[in-house]
């Protein structure tokens, strides 16, 4: 047994000081040597617990075995049997709470670095040309996919492999969803996402960008007039929430979506070569403490902010961001103003942010979710000196599609109601990803896309 012989291989990263000033990927990826060492740690369990922690049940020991046999292309192919976007997942999945949290090695020492190995194999594939993907003969059935995020991309790929004619309708000028507009280049290079989308096109999937469903067309129109036999809605959680406090429309207050979209999708970090501007002050407050907030605060530093401060109502333990992202943010110099909540944003005579009135909080009794709920300390008001505020407190469902689709059952929050098979209340219409669950993760959206593809295939056979 190789237990404890080799320790878990650390991910090589750019030095925090220099990386906080550039948009190049932070984690540079395993070398072949490291990948082989890490792969050798895997026990090849007969009943691999890791797989139970993976929402799409990637054949984990199998692909790791192929890496240790130096069949990297084979490893990539093995990954793709279950996961259409392994190069993305290897980078952004919260493995620490999924596969790696279940790995048997984790009981006595560190779990196998499954995510890093996943990334290694898929990067190898991207660098050495993609492996062939098999495709069933054409069925003559047409499926419309609405929204080109991870849920839609996955559903599209699986349906195309089954021989269906698939068209993705995407509102923005590129597909990819949050992978393109939200998650920054330094965490997920856009070239990696584009490669995955190009692979999809090679499978015969048609990608129609600049198509806002609910405006240029509608679900009913696609199905009744354009001959689509089924539709999958994967429009995500794209509606930014604000705090509803005074001063939120001042100049210098961005939603995280606007801030990140300017920087990532529109490449404002390359302004003025790319023409979309982004203005960044000296002191930036980011409200919230999830992955979105971490991405915004780290982006602010890279865009030249002198100080980037996460402002969060609860304490460090309750922060919803991935541990690795939190750590990276801290290393790069992001500051944390915890147990603090803003009550007003204050502007100067030109209506530009000059400060934020905040209250201090302390932790009270645990609430229903088990988290200790924050309680405001009376009279603790103070002014945080900032000139830019990024609101990253969450996103809801965008109503453009749901409102224009009669017969689609929604829940109280406006999310689409779908059962375990991703079937909605409307015949022939399936849905999955953030539009069903509310803001969640890439892999859960992909899992939903996969399940929906199976259900759609079954549905098409009955037609």
């Amino acid at each position, binding site marked *: 047994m190789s237990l404890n012989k080799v320790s878990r291989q650390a991910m090589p990263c750019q030095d925090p000081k220099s990386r906080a000033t550039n948009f190049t990927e932070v984690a540079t990826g395993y070398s072949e040597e490291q990948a082989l060492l890490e792969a050798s740690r895997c026990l090849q369990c007969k009943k691999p617990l890791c797989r139970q922690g993976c929402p799409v049940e990637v054949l984990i020991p199998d692909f790791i075995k192929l890496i240790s046999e130096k069949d990297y292309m084979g490893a990539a192919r093995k990954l793709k049997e279950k996961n259409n976007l392994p190069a993305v997942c290897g980078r952004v999945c919260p493995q620490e709470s999924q596969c790696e949290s279940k790995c048997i090695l984790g009981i006595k020492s560190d779990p196998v670095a499954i995510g890093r190995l996943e990334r290694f194999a898929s990067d190898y594939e991207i660098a050495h040309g993609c492996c062939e993907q098999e495709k069933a003969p054409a069925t003559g059935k047409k499926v419309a996919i609405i929204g080109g995020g991870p849920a839609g991309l996955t559903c599209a790929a699986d349906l195309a492999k089954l021989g269906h004619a698939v068209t993705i309708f995407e509102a923005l000028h590129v597909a990819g969803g949050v992978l393109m507009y939200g998650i920054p280049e330094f965490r997920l290079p856009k070239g990696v996402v584009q490669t995955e989308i190009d692979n999809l096109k090679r499978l015969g999937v048609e990608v129609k960008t600049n198509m806002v469903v609910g405006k240029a067309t509608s679900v009913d129109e696609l199905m009744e007039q354009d001959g689509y036999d089924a539709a999958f809605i994967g429009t995500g959680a794209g509606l930014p929430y*604000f705090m509803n406090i005074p001063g939120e429309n001042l100049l210098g207050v961005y939603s995280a979506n606007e801030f990140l979209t300017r920087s990532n999708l529109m*490449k404002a970090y390359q302004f003025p070569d790319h023409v979309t501007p982004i203005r960044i002050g000296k002191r930036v407050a980011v409200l919230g403490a999830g992955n979105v907030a971490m991405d915004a605060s780290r982006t602010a530093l890279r865009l030249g902010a002198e100080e980037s401060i996460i402002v969060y109502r609860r304490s460090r333990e309750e922060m919803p961001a991935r541990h690795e992202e939190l750590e990276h943010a801290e290393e790069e110099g992001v500051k944390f103003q915890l147990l603090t909540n803003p009550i007003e944003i204050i502007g100067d005579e030109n209506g530009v942010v000059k400060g934020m009135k905040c209250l201090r909080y302390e932790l009270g009794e645990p609430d229903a979710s088990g988290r200790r709920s924050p309680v405001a300390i009376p009279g603790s008001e103070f002014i945080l000196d900032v000139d830019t505020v990024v609101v990253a407190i969450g996103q809801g469902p965008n109503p453009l599609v749901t409102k224009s689709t009669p017969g689609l059952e929604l829940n109280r929050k406006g999310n689409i109601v779908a059962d375990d098979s991703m079937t909605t209340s409307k015949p022939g219409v399936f849905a999955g990803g953030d539009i069903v669950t509310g803001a969640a993760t890439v892999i859960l959206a992909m899992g939903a896309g996969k399940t929906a593809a199976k259900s759609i295939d079954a549905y098409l056979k009955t037609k």
Partner: protein
Amino acid sequence: MYPIVKRRDLTSGIVLLEVQAPEVAAKAQPGQFVIVRSDDKGERIPLTIADFNRETGTITIVIQDVGYSSKMINTLGEGDAFLDFVGPLGLATDIEKYGRVVCVAGGVGAAPIYPIARALQQAGNEVITIIGSRCKDLLILDEEMAEVCDQVVIATNDGSVGVKGFVTDALDGIIKQYDGKIDHIWAIGPMIMMKAVVEFTRPLGIKTVVSLNPIMVDGTGMCGACRVSVGGETKFACVDGPEFDGHLVDFDLAMRRLTYFKDEEKRASARDNCGGGCGCH
């Protein structure tokens, strides 16, 4: 790609482009807008739909060069194409039979007003349109407008044609002419002009709709860059508008929000004037 099939120079700095975009043309309604991008490094620029032709599958836009991206677009001609052209976005104008209506256009605002005036006329309204510009040479679309309106009044700041003064002076004349019996007003143009019209009609109690043009990014309700305050509530102009009841709009906030990127806009424009490498940006 979305090919440009026609270019017409309306006046100095204002160009009309007819663009092949069948999916947009099939659905476009007066009051809606598109977002365009000329190339891979370009901004997403919102422009109102000035006309649409469902048969030819084309959309007409009219664009004034006010900064880097609009100047770029105004160099395009027949044979060129937009890389991206998305729409129709926003809500359509509420077209119904109101009675006697006045459409007030300032500068390039004549372009978006045109399909609205036409639709209002087709719906059986008596349509009076006021077009304002600084001088005769900058006046646009007056002949086209005359074809679809019952009456066209022109106002120029220097009096080189029509009424001398602002659109509000011409509006004052019309309201007096009809003894205040105006059922509905639309005003589209620079924020400052829309604000003036709204302040003018407020005491008269004539419903006045304006079309707001805040800074936008996606145009689908995803970013909130376009937020405006209407009746004390925050609205996203791209999905809740762009038309709003003018008497409820906080124009001072809307005007301020338009200035947020002005330093960057100057840098973008400077880039081409100096050719780069000079250290000025």
